[in-house]
């Protein structure tokens, strides 16, 4: 029994179940106003209704496509720019101030601008997700290369390795470790970009549905949608973790 409770996932599940039970009881006894805090059973019922109804899939697909596309493109752009800035000093002079500025502001404020430029379809949501992810990944790659272990660089140089060998044998593996560290944050950023983009202007997506739930004072629908987004982020998190485990197996052995 003691070893059963020693497992962290058991303790977490029990804590979650307890919280849900207390919330349910509080909502049913009137301690919580169901208009603002609907009972978990009500939230679950709305979620099931959404799934059975089938209308949710088009919204899920829109958000998921924008987030995943934004994540992939953001990763590619961040890695490319990070490498270029680290290896070509002139580019670093140009890119670093822009990235620092972009990092300093809440980048979601660019959402209206993307709608003006790209319209209310998928591309404006993808663009926002790309900007959110790319800046994060840029710094992970840039600082990863700048702070690479000099001893390893000198080791490869004394073995006769040139620039390309250094990139392949030292920089890429070092940077992979850095990028993997930021990948989970990047997943969250990609969904933030997609959902906020949909908030600002769209005709579908979970952000659009959330906006609708807010305007109709439907807290149960809001909770159900938040739950759904959490679920999808969790799925992507576990994929990111599996990828990290595979790429950084030298750390986990």
């Amino acid at each position, binding site marked *: 029994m003691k070893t059963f409770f020693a497992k962290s996932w058991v303790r977490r599940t029990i804590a979650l179940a307890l919280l849900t039970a207390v919330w349910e009881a509080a909502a049913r006894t009137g301690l919580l106003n169901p208009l603002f805090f609907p009972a978990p059973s009500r939230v679950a019922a709305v979620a099931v209704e959404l799934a059975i109804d089938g209308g949710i899939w088009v919204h899920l697909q829109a958000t998921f496509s924008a987030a995943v596309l934004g994540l992939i493109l953001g990763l590619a752009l961040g890695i490319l720019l990070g490498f270029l800035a680290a290896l070509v000093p002139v580019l670093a002079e140009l890119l670093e101030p822009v990235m620092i500025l972009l990092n300093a502001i809440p980048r979601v404020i660019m959402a209206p601008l993307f709608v003006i430029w790209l319209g209310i379809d998928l591309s404006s949501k993808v663009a926002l997700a790309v900007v959110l992810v790319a800046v994060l990944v840029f710094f992970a790659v840039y600082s990863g290369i700048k702070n690479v272990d000099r*001893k*390893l660089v*000198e*080791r*490869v*140089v*004394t*073995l*006769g*390795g040139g620039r390309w*060998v250094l990139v392949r*044998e*030292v920089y890429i*593996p070092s940077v992979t470790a850095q990028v993997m560290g930021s990948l989970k944050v990047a997943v969250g950023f990609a969904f933030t970009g997609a959902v906020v983009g949909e908030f600002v202007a769209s005709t579908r997506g979970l952000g659009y549905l959330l906006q609708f739930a807010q305007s109709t004072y439907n807290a149960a629908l809001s909770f159900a949608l938040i739950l759904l987004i959490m679920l999808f982020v969790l799925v992507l998190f576990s994929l990111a973790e599996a990828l990290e485990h595979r790429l*950084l197996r*030298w*750390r986990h*052995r």
Partner: protein
Amino acid sequence: MLKVRNVSLAYGAEPVLENLDLDIATGAFVSLVGPSGSGKTSVLRAVTGLQTPLNGSVELDVDKCDVGFLFQDDALLPWRTARQNVALGLRIRGIAGDKALAEADSWLARLGLAGLEQRYPSQLSGGQRKRVAIAQVLALKPKLLLMDEPFASLDAIVRARITQELVDWVEREHMTVLLVTHDLEEALSTSDVVYLLSQGPRARIRSHYEVPIPRPRTLIETRKHPAFGALLDRLWCDLADEVNVAGAEAAQ
């Protein structure tokens, strides 16, 4: 094999080492000892081209790719297995992947690491990692071997064993060696000539000591040789003088 002419080396404005002249004949085992901050490591870095001298020149009778450098830290790539680390230098020299790996395995076996080829550096002990680093360098069959306190981090027994193995190897292959070390006994027991550097900044060669002990050598027997004790005493006294003089100058 190696001629260092009037070389000065600096990290900041003031040279850490000034006007160094050093001649190392083919097949010689030479050590460089001296107080901390006398620029010993910088000399090795200048020979490999990792550091540019302020003035002077470094002349090598061999190609740069015939120079092996054994670092103080093993500096193995943590994301590569032992065999991949050893094969890296071979692959850089143009040997195909499979052949390089096979050769790496044979070098690891020669250094007593058979069965550990697939392990990552984090799964090896300090002594094993050091052996992998040695295999990585020896696999390239260097004609000139530079070593920067390569065994400093190892415990006494492992250190003695690996040093003996390396000395055997060097004698068998008639390699030329320049060893930088803080350990005077290690310097005398392995080398033909030991150079003592003065305290930096602006360090110079203070004196040198020929070691008249015949080869092949075993490190334990070498320490029992009649010339060894007297040489060690002289070296200790000269080094202590150097450190004391530098300390007194600093106090003024």
